[in-house]
């Protein structure tokens, strides 16, 4: 399947399945902490979603060549975890500095979410998955970008629902994360509906 040259159709399939079917949050269980933590309002959710999309895509561009041209030839595969996490941490730092200097508007909008991304397991998880799934560079970039979009979509949907919690009479012990997780469960069931759509 993947040995054929990339067609537009196969790219769209990859995009769709990473966003909808194998959604980072509802199917892969990655990035749950920011999902529960930063989705109080649609505005913060959107900011976080954009910052994650930016870093995750950039991360694929950097980690894939490192794995392919440095770790694999030198048989240093066991350093994957430590190298990738350092790449992510420095990438986040670098993006922060770069934005502050050259894209002040973007920095004001996304700056506060950037430090949180280092410990977002979706970023490291997707970087490792790109290698495990044996993707090439282009596929890795599309996969990372799409996964981040899926993450953002889940975050924004959830924030929308959560804003309604404010005006709903929720029983005491169910407040906060409890009702949030149950809502996520129902959303996950809804997303299961996509699973038959792509072979």
């Amino acid at each position, binding site marked *: 399947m993947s040995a054929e040259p990339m067609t537009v159709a196969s790219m769209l399939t990859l995009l769709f399945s990473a966003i909808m079917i194998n959604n980072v949050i*509802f*199917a*892969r*269980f*990655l*990035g*749950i*902490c920011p999902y*529960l933590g930063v989705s109080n309002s649609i505005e913060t959710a959107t900011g976080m979603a954009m910052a994650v999309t930016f870093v995750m895509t950039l991360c694929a561009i950097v980690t894939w060549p490192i794995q392919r041209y440095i770790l694999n030839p030198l048989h240093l595969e*066991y*350093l*994957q*975890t*430590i190298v990738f*996490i*350092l790449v992510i*941490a*420095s990438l986040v730092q670098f993006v922060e500095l770069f934005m502050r200097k050259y894209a002040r508007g973007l920095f004001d909008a996304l700056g506060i979410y950037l430090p949180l991304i*280092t*410990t*977002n*397991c979706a*970023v*490291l*998880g997707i970087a*490792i*998955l790109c290698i*495990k799934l044996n993707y090439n560079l282009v596929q890795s970039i599309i996969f990372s970008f799409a996964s981040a979009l899926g993450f953002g979509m889940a975050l924004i949907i959830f924030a929308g629902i959560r804003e309604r919690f404010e005006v709903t009479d929720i029983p*005491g*012990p*169910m*407040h906060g*994360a*409890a*009702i*949030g*997780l*149950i*809502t*996520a*469960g*129902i959303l*996950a*069931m809804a997303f*299961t509906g996509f699973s038959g759509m792509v072979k």
Partner: protein
Amino acid sequence: MSSAKKTAGSVFKNGLIVENPTLRMLLGMCPTLAVSTSAVNAVGMGLSATLVLILSNVVISLLRKMIPEKLRIPGYIVVIATFVTMTDLALHAFFPDIHKALGIFIPLIVVNCIILGRAEAFAGKNPVLLSAVDGLAMGLGFTSGLLILGMVREILGNGTFFGLQVLSASFPQVIVMILPAGAFITLGLTIAAANWIESRRKNA
């Protein structure tokens, strides 16, 4: 907690119960949801994370005066990632079945917020012995949270407990418990139960 003098006992109780990372602090949710499909996986994950937590807490506590304030997060991450990789290699060599079952979630222990969280909130400020106790208690707290979830999901979803058949074969398996949706809902209900017990305890 912070004002009272810390003893090993109070630190231990704090990690296991008062600030139970899974049920009270809501940390480390990703591995909790992903590997709690069976009790064995839950214990394997819990103990691996406990090991990393104790080791990284000890080393970070030892280095706490040496690591410069500005670069402490990258410093912590290097220490944690080192122990995670060691655990990964050791599991592969000595417990290949568990290594196989936990898969990608072993390297992801690096970004488990419990570990970085304890480095930042405890080990970076406290002496070595207390940090070790804190790591052990938090790790066991995490393991127990995982185990509760793993038990419920395995029994209802698969009819087994640690791989042994406990529900008769005629009892329908609730497949959704094994699916992601079941993970979210079970964890939500467990946290609600913990909140309820906590509020009863406070009012009593």
